[in-house]
């Protein structure tokens, strides 16, 4: 058995049996092994960044570890964006990177780059494999590290001779590393947390991506119901409590909802689970939940007190913390102390839920989201690119389940959505997958249309086409006196023709009344299908917290009700 065959065996167990990659000189031995083994599905992408995002999409949709591969030098450097994206959103990913033969290391060989070193700042761990004997232990270690504790990407750099060399018969020991051990919060801390939540007059729950990762959406929803407490979700936790649930307030922060930001700013106890309190969530830190005792639950202890000081910390994965809290909360007699608060929040929630059935032409993005809510199948998986369309989707699209809404949150990677949709389709071939895209992002990855056709991965695209970098334009409009600098994309390309050029289908939609039919056609299509919706750039996502501003001082849209000072009657 050579190193490549050992690698393929490891991809089957403990790996997922699927990889997304592109061949090249340094990884030829591996592709030779793949050709002789049917047990691993190799999805042939058209750009390594696409391969990394597709592996992320696979991981985010399924909860399993995604695998991507690039050859040495440029192949591996192209993977870096996706690796960094996975690092920011704690996605389990194993990135295999080719390397020149070990005898040539450091000699500026053809396609040599020190990609191991490049990957260090954006990976949970990285392995440098220079002999065939190290392949199996490195891969087993990589899969274990990627998926345990707080998940993350692991890079494995493999020299060509490690892939082609024979594995000796000796059993290789596992890498001795400080692997993540399961962590459970202390009983005292759990008891105190339960008491705080039950005694609260103005409780709030906040789910972060950790709840999605731990598959703890049901526990989170059950805790909200047991406490009868409103719950907010960050962008990576969308769907952890259904957006249709009466206790769900949706997203908070810079692009969040006004009611959510005000509720968090006025609560007296905030249970935050699996969130790192990103600057986009907190706004100005000093005025984030100023009256709240913050209970912070996270599997990664280094997140505690990093951005926001916690009153109480619970270390453990979201599922174990939430189940333990739920059991305790249910075991206590409960006196309802928060009814007045709930009534206030519910009233504001109703005021902030506006009708988005705009009827004008060009189509408004809000209307597209309304049509998607009505016409997308309930189990559909949606990915997004990054930009204003993403913010509209976060705000108005309704998710029912965790892992239904897949987006590049922390790194904000334009071009993420389409390859991620392909990866999600590999993980969930049974459900329709749609990429909600902007015209700026989609051209960054449109070469992957070819992957969709050639690999028979029929996904649909709902393109909000406004001819601009919409989110950047919005900021130039609001904060730079409407000096639009390098944000106008023009009317190119013709996306329907582009889809057709790659073997897909498509249609252009100008009128809101045609949207529903187009969406149904797209999701039912057995080929790549692109719906090119002509939108206007003037529709900006509102409300919005200005950069470094307070979450309660939002720039309001025309239809947003201003919240009167002292609405909640909270006194310091």
């Amino acid at each position, binding site marked *: 058995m050579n190193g490549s065959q050992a690698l393929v065996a490891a991809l089957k167990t403990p790996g997922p049996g699927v990889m997304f990659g592109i061949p090249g000189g340094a990884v030829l031995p591996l592709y030779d092994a793949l050709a002789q083994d049917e047990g691993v599905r190799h999805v042939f992408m058209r750009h390594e960044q696409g391969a990394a995002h597709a592996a992320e999409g696979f991981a985010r949709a399924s909860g399993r570890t995604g695998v991507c591969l690039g050859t040495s030098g440029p192949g591996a450097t192209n993977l870096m964006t996706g690796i960094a994206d996975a690092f920011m959103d704690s996605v389990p990913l194993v990135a295999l990177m080719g390397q020149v033969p070990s005898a040539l290391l450091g000699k500026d060989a053809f396609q040599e780059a020190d990609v*191991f*070193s490049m990957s*260090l*700042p954006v990976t*949970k*761990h*990285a392995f*440098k494999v220079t002999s065939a004997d190290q392949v199996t232990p490195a891969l087993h270690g990589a899969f274990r*590290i990627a998926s345990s504790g707080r998940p993350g990407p692991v890079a494995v750099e493999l020299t060509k001779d490690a892939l082609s060399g024979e594995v000796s018969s000796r059993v290789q020991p596992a890498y*001795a*590393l*400080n*692997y993540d*051990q399961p*962590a459970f*919060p*202390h009983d*005292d*801390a759990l008891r*105190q947390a339960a008491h705080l939540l039950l005694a609260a007059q103005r409780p709030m729950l906040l789910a972060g991506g950790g709840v999605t990762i731990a598959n703890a959406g049901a526990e989170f929803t059950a805790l909200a119901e047991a406490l009868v407490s409103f719950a907010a979700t960050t962008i990576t936790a969308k769907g952890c409590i259904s957006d249709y649930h009466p206790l769900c307030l949706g997203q908070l922060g810079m692009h969040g909802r006004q009611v959510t930001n005000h509720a968090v700013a006025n609560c007296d106890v905030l249970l935050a689970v699996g969130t790192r309190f990103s600057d986009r969530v907190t706004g100005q830190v000093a005025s984030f939940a100023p009256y709240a005792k913050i209970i912070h639950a996270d599997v*990664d*202890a*280094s997140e*505690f*007190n*990093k951005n926001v000081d916690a009153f*109480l*910390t*619970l*270390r*453990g994965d979201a599922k174990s913390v939430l189940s333990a809290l739920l059991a305790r909360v249910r075991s206590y007699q409960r006196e309802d102390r928060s009814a007045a608060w709930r009534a206030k929040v519910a009233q504001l929630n109703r005021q902030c839920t506006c009708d988005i059935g705009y009827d004008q032409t060009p189509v408004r993005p809000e209307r597209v989201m309304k049509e998607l809510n009505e016409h997308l199948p309930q189990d559909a998986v949606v990915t997004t690119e990054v930009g204003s369309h993403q913010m509209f989707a976060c705000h108005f699209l309704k998710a029912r389940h965790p892992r239904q809404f897949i987006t590049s949150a922390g790194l904000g990677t334009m071009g993420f959505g389409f390859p991620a949709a392909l990866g999600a389709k590999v993980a969930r071939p049974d459900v329709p997958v749609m990429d909600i895209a902007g015209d700026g992002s989609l051209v960054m990855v449109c070469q992957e249309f070819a992957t969709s056709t050639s690999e028979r991965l029929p996904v649909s695209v709902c393109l909000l086409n406004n001819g601009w970098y919409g989110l950047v334009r919005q900021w130039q409009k609001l904060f730079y006196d409407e000096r639009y600098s390098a944000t106008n994309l023009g009317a190119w390309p013709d996306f329907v023709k582009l889809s057709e050029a790659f073997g897909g289908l498509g249609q252009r939609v100008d009128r809101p009344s045609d949207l529903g039919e187009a969406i149904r056609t797209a999701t039912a299509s057995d080929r790549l299908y692109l719906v090119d919706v002509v939108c206007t750039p003037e529709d900006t996502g509102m409300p919005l917290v200005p950069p470094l501003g307070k979450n309660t001082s939002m720039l309001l849209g025309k239809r947003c009700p201003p919240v009167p000072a002292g609405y909640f009657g909270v006194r310091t």
Partner: protein
Amino acid sequence: MSATTHPTMNVTTRAMGQPVESGLVSVVPMPLRADVRPQAIPLNMPQVHTLAFCVRNNPGVLQRIAGIFCRRAVALRELSFQEHSDGCARVYVSFMGSAALRRQVVGQLEKMLDAVPVHGGGPDDPGYGNQGDDGT
């Protein structure tokens, strides 16, 4: 009340006129002034911190340590790195920054998979010896 992490990292804070603030194991002997309590130091006041810890001496481990400081735009004041017979290396690193920064850096260093949990070792190694939670 806070969850205790694995005893990986030894932390010593050296500040002008300040006593040693020790984590699990005190490493570098410091002149003490009993009249100043460590908690009186504001979180944002820059001080010199010295950390001592053990890592597995894999290729790239020093780069990983350096990266934790680099991405926070922190320059190092002192660094020593010495491999021991068991393949582990003892690292001393000192830098200037706030206590909040030190807390971040320690959290990140403890997360490194190359870090070696200190379970107590040879009595003449100042980094070994005290094991487990000493209640500080």
